[in-house]
């Protein structure tokens, strides 16, 4: 993570000059409607079209704004991003004041752009729009393409498209690693608090696939978030159990594994991962992929040793 932040900070320092006029106007025009590349548009005014006061009300837009905004551009972040468990960038967000998504408090900040998530409470957002404030809503990212699109869109809205490209490049660089060294892809399952697991069509699923794992939840027909019974876990005998810890201590996630029957999984390799790395579509996804690739390599080594010792 520090590697990514360092590169982006360098990009920021290098690119602190206002960009070409065309990019600024394009950033303006690309505002409503979302999407990937900012379309080329007529030459606009100048660097002062970059939004000067940006408020974010959603963890994922917080993270992207923190990584991509100019200093002083981001004036308020959601309260979640200061939570050390939920947010991978809580230190970076340190000094920036937080908001709770209420219309009045945001309006008092006099923002010219509000970044929100599609599942945020629509009532205050609608009120802000009726007061003439620009609100951009971002869909939940379900795979790497969504992540790339949202990174680029935030960058365009903030008026720093080159930083967006740098971030996407960083992400792609992290993903384009060497091929996993085994013939049969191992099966992994992610256990979050309250026995939630991530199935097909989630960022978690994309990260697992990129790291070379099969996702047990997806193979059992779960799409989106779902629940796997302990029975299914026991009979499926996955190769790797990933214990997440969003919004709580790992103890909550591990509660199921304290069930007496879970001793049937006693010899399954387990790893605890801060799943705040893959909650949102940021370049930090590459970190998660890297951690899991390390696990995969360790698994492969284990298998090789077993095969070497006893034969199969």
């Amino acid at each position: 993570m520090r590697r990514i932040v360092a590169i982006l900070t360098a990009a920021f320092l290098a690119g602190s000059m206002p960009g070409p006029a065309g990019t600024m106007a394009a950033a303006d025009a690309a505002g409503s409607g979302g999407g990937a590349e900012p379309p080329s548009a007529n030459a606009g005014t100048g660097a002062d079209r970059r939004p000067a006061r940006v408020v974010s009300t959603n963890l994922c837009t917080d993270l992207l704004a923190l990584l991509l905004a100019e200093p002083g551009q981001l004036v308020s972040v959601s309260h979640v991003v200061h939570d050390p468990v939920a947010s991978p960038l809580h230190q970076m967000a340190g000094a920036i004041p937080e908001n709770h998504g209420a219309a009045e408090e945001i309006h008092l900040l006099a923002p010219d752009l509000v970044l929100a998530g599609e599942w945020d409470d629509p009532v205050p957002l609608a009120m802000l729009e009726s007061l003439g404030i620009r609100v951009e809503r971002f869909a939940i990212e379900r795979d790497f393409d969504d992540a790339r699109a949202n990174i680029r869109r935030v960058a365009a809205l903030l008026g720093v498209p080159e930083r967006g490209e740098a971030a996407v490049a960083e992400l792609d660089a992290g993903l384009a690693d060497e091929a996993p060294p085994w013939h049969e892809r191992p099966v992994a399952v992610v256990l979050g608090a309250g026995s939630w697991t991530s199935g097909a069509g989630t960022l978690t699923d994309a990260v697992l696939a990129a790291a070379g794992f099969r996702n047990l939840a997806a193979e059992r027909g779960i799409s989106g978030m779902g629940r796997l019974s302990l029975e299914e876990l026991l009979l499926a005998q996955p190769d790797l159990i990933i214990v997440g810890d969003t919004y709580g201590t790992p103890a909550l996630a591990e509660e199921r594994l304290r069930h007496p029957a879970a001793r049937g999984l006693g010899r399954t390799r387990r790893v605890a991962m801060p799943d705040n790395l893959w909650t949102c579509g940021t370049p930090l996804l590459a970190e998660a992929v890297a951690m899991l690739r390390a696990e995969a390599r360790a698994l492969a080594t284990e298998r090789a040793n077993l095969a070497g010792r006893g034969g199969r």
Partner: protein
Amino acid sequence: MTPQRLVLPLLGAVTLALFAASLLLGPAGAPAGRSLAALLTGDNPALALVMREIRLPRALLGLGIGAALGLAGAALQGYLRNPLAEPGLLGVSAAAALGAVLAFYTGLAALLPLALPLMALGGAFAATLLVVGLAGVAGGALTLILAGVAVSSLAGALTSLVLNLSPNPFAASEIMFWLLGSLADRSWMHVALAGPFILAGMGLLLLLARDLEALTLGEDAARSLGIPLGRTRALALGGTAAAVGAGVAVAGAIGFVGLVVPHLLRPVVGHSPSRLLPAAALGGASFLLAADVAARLIAPERDLKLGVLTALVGAPFFLRLVWTTRRRLA
């Protein structure tokens, strides 16, 4: 009277069949023969683990909690002489749920695995003491019902407050889902915790048979027949608190069982409050076991909650009751 003699054996057979179904059906999808062999002999270690540590405790809990709910419903309806009474009326379920929710909120549930059921049990007994204190020693049926409603409302309000103040959306949804009721992933630990209270509570409630018969004539006439109503009240409230409180502590709030089952079975046992007790216990066990099996078969990946299923059956039941009552009175 001969058909009535068949009622209990018939209910017993149905309960047994549903117990077997609960044992043998599940997401693992193993055929019945293999599951049974694994349960008894232990070969096929993964399946044996599933059968012995997951299915068997779950089936036992379905049996015990269902029986407790059905029996408590029948006992309370007989004691209060009101066919709309149910275990939740006296505030036991709501207070048990509040205890559990507090365990979630304070984080105790994560630290100690037994913290949640123990706090739920504590809530149940506290509610009973409060209801008795409010209604007074001499309080009759109506006063008890009013006190129960007051305690239920208070517990419900506090539970909503806890939900409102929960530190993160995950905790709130955890609490909410727990409240809907479920037997998934319960273990022998839960059986050991709830079992003694359920058995003791049911024992107390079964002692009410004679008292409930006499209460058919009203409280004064019952007392004139020699029924010590103070003891009757203690048995009814204490038995309900123990049996139902333990059930909620382990499985969350499951409604409608204690209301619907005695209603359905009352005509079958000739409306006799004493004969209804064992019948309602078996009927409640069958109902809950059936709901638990249905939860596993209908939409296994969606994790249907027990309380939702029992409510989905219970509400149409009420509609039907209103309909037939209307037709009868018209």
